[in-house]
């Protein structure tokens, strides 16, 4: 369903992504791991076109983007079929939790207000926050904020959800409530690409683990393979250091 071919991206003369090829089948969970600065965030951001790749193509079902020629329409279409959960939540601070979830429904999906409200509540309930509809982001804990952000990302019914270290900014005791929500999503066969440092979680949910270093995919495979069987020294060093 998601096909990335020959993706390149550089910032100035720093080559951050070098020939990235990636396939994610429908309903699968792919976890990307790798050292800091290896380009994991840049890859996810490119899939959402928050960064413009320099070369290569991205395909999600019938939406095809070629880096050499990205139109505004393509950009919008791609973004409508992917949604991103950021490390630092990025909730709309001038809107309540429920309004955050409804925003994409109203503005992007053009669903009428009463219907959007119903759906918004459904997704808020789904992430375990039926009592926080009317709270503003400033009144929520980090874990609650991230769950609202996930509800917001789910609400537009994306084909693929992208997560960039969704638990890294959270106090340790709040990590699990967020991972739980993501695990539920995995069980419901949501297609997901996740960058995370939570290796236990990765092992549990990942259909495939991708190891990135210095802008390249070094190796990939089942969690069993990456964590226990790979003899690649860079991977072993990375895992040993965790």
């Amino acid at each position, binding site marked *: 369903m998601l096909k990335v071919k020959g993706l390149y991206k550089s910032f100035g003369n720093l080559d951050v992504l070098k020939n990235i090829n990636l396939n994610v089948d429908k309903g699968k969970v792919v976890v990307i791991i790798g050292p800091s600065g290896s380009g994991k965030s840049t890859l996810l951001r490119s899939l959402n076109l928050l960064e413009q790749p320099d070369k290569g193509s991205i395909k999600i079902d019938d939406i095809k983007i070629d880096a050499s020629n990205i139109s505004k329409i393509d950009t919008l279409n791609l973004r409508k079929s992917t*949604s*991103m959960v*950021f490390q630092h*939540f990025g909730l709309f601070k*001038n809107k309540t939790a429920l309004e955050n979830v409804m925003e994409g429904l109203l503005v*992007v999906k053009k669903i009428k207000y009463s219907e959007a409200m119903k759906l918004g509540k459904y997704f808020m309930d789904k992430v375990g926050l039926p009592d926080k509809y009317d709270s503003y982001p400033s009144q929520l804990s980090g874990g609650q904020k991230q769950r609202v952000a996930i509800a917001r990302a789910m609400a*537009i019914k994306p084909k693929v959800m992208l997560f960039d270290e969704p638990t890294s900014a959270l106090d340790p005791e709040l990590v699990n409530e967020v991972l739980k929500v993501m695990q539920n999503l995995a069980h419901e066969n949501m297609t997901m690409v996740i960058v995370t440092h939570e290796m236990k979680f990765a092992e549990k949910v990942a259909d495939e683990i991708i190891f990135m270093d210095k802008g390249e995919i070094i190796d990939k495979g089942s969690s069993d393979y990456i964590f226990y069987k790979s003899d690649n020294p860079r991977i072993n060093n990375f895992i040993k250091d965790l």
Partner: protein
Amino acid sequence: MNLLNINFNLEYFLSRFSVIGKFLPVTLGIAIFSMLIGLLIALVIAFLLDLKITGLNKILRTYISFFRGTPLMVQLFIFYFGFPQVFPRLAQIPIYIVAVYVMSINGSAYMSETIRASINSVDKIQLESALSIGMTKYQAMKRIILPQAARIAIPPLGNTFISLVQGTAITFLLGVKEIMAVAKISASSTYKFLENYLVVGIIYWIITLVFTNLLNRLETKMNKAY
């Protein structure tokens, strides 16, 4: 009344409030129009700056720098006395209009900076979040970023308005008949300088106090929201 031989006519002083106050609409009119037009120009400038067109940005930066870097009085003189020398037809523009457009331009230089700073102070990840779910930049600005920026911009914009109100005092030099002009004329003809200037000072002060109070209320109201 000539208490303790102090040369201050209290009765005259009190009577000046209504005489000078009659011209308050002129003062407020110039300030309010300048504020509104200035705000419009400032929004356009902020928008154009955001396009990041190198040549255009240089011109706009120069504009902002000049109008912030020179006294309002000098600007008024350049536009009112200076330009008609080169473009004689400009001399036909009524003084009130000249006053309003010079003050609009002056205000716009300050307000464009305010607007930009307020927009920049809304964290960028909110914009990215909006884009990431498929909103256009326009939708994101309108629904998410600008409402938050507006809240941040209100106190400094209020200050600009107060500056504009006080700035109208200089327009009497062009012959605009506002409260300062009336005070000046009466003062010269009666030699009651203190009475007249004190009255006009108090009127400016009251405007500022009333406006500041309104602004504070607005701020508290908006801060309650989130």
